């Protein structure tokens, strides 16, 4: 059941206007990145490479939020899930299948972006190395975590509010990495808030390996595995929360 739902979700997501438009936007932005490299006062090639890698994260997260927030709430509002849940499908099958389908579509989109970005960099003479592929893979994990975040928020609120909350989670998630340093300067309630934020929001700064990769700085396999495991755990937690919310939902 899960595989069947995932397959249909993949086709539906990959053909959605938001998905294709944002991939088109990425292609245009990659072409423009050379311009930024040229006008920069420093090494233009490194700036271009940095931009291309960062665009993969930003556009990828936008795709994840745009498609992820439409995943459950829109199905409830438009009643498209009636024809699915009236079959021998459990609600958790539906949520997990939906997430896996979206994750597959996003992973394909990320691979396409990475191939396009690195291909463009190679063509324009900018530095390309194997670590950049690993950085792209870690960005994909970040995007999948954000897809799970959007799935979770959309089960709790409207698609519009879920979009705002997702973007806030993305911003806070990238700031979480610097919270431990900030805590040394804070006391009492403020320090407590820092600790809670660090626990409640996924630390997306773990996936910011792009800058180091462009400079060819290596990352250990253990470190990579830990970051991967951290992402998988967050995804599992968020999908579980979504399942428990949807199980109680009156449709």
């Amino acid at each position, binding site marked *: 059941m899960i595989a*069947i739902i995932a*397959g*249909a979700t993949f086709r539906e997501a990959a053909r959605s206007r938001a998905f294709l438009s944002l991939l088109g936007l990425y292609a245009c932005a990659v072409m423009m990145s050379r311009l930024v490299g040229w006008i920069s006062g420093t090494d233009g090639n490194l700036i271009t490479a940095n931009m291309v890698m960062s665009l993969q994260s930003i556009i990828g997260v936008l795709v994840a939020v745009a498609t992820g927030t439409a995943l459950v709430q829109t199905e409830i509002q438009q009643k498209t899930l*009636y*024809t*699915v*849940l009236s079959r*021998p499908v*459990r609600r958790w099958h539906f949520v997990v299948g939906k997430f896996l389908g979206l994750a597959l579509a996003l992973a394909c989109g990320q691979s396409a972006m990475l191939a396009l970005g690195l291909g463009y960099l190679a063509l324009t003479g900018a530095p390309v190395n194997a670590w950049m592929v690993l950085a792209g893979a870690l960005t994909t994990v970040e995007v999948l975590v954000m897809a799970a975040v959007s799935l979770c928020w959309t089960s709790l609120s409207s698609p519009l509010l879920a979009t705002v909350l997702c973007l806030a989670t993305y911003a806070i998630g990238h700031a979480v990495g610097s919270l431990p340093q900030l805590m040394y300067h804070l006391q009492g309630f403020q320090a407590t808030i820092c600790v809670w934020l660090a626990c409640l929001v996924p630390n997306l700064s773990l996936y910011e390996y792009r800058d180091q990769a462009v400079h060819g700085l290596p990352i250990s396999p253990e470190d990579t595995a830990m970051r991967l495991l951290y992402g998988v755990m967050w995804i599992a937690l968020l999908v579980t929360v979504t399942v428990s919310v949807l199980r109680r939902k*009156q449709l």
Partner: protein
Amino acid sequence: MSDDIVSYADVSFSYRGDWLNRIDALRQVTLAVPAGCAYGFLGANGAGKSTSIKLLMGLLHGHGGAIRLFGSPIGDHRLRARLGYLPEQPYFYDNLALEEYLAYLGRLSGMTKAQIGPARERVYQLLDLGDLRARKLKSFSKGMRQRFGLAQAIFHQPDLLVLDEPFSGLDPLWRARFKEVMALERKRGATLFFSSHILSDVEDLCDRYGVIDHGTVLEQGRIADLLGQAPLELTGSGPIPAGAADLADGTWRLSFPESDRARALASLPAGAEILRLERHRLDLEAWFVSRVRAHHGAGSPLAASAASATSTKSRGERP
């Protein structure tokens, strides 16, 4: 009870309203749909038809009482492989083509790939969808969506078809075709359970009916028994029996229910000549309105409008 495909026993359900308020949608609903029958579930808008159906489908939960499907409690999700459901005003995924969508839903119902091909051809033929097979559903009109809705409900040849307002948004030609398809499904052996507020559809298709209003089942039974309540009208000449209306042409007319037939004929005065005995068709709409009106009570605005509708109807029938 064991022959009932669907049964509701003292089912109550309430929605969450504002703050801590609950809105009662169903009150002690008890009804049974026997195997092989076509059951028309009648009710005005907001009477509780869709809520009852959604509970059966597992889309709503937290009800009181017991709902059984194929003799088992509805909690077992595997039972749903044996039913087909057309929701009210159905929506579907925009970016899937019709043939992909049917295959997807068929596989969710447990069909194999080998079964899907012939089943697709069958519904294309029944609902004239063959030319639309490669089109994405976002380009479908309301009527096309309704046709696809019925196609996906009958696709896996279910034992029970649950249709929520199946004729909504259809032109007269497609209404007639839908009725034919539903009759074919019944002939195949499927049980039909459908909601409607259009009484002629129920009369055409069903052999059983139930009326729900404000979450309470007012009445249920056989359509034949209901239609049998239509009065007989006896026209005669000669001595006028008690209770008969004297007509201008020297004849008289006596109305009585079918159940009083023998007594009425026996009590005719000596010399009275029977010219004709006719059964008038029961005006189901007027019957439904009067039934709901009686339930609402005289103070309700709906009762007032129902009263005016009934009186308009009877004025219109007068020669």
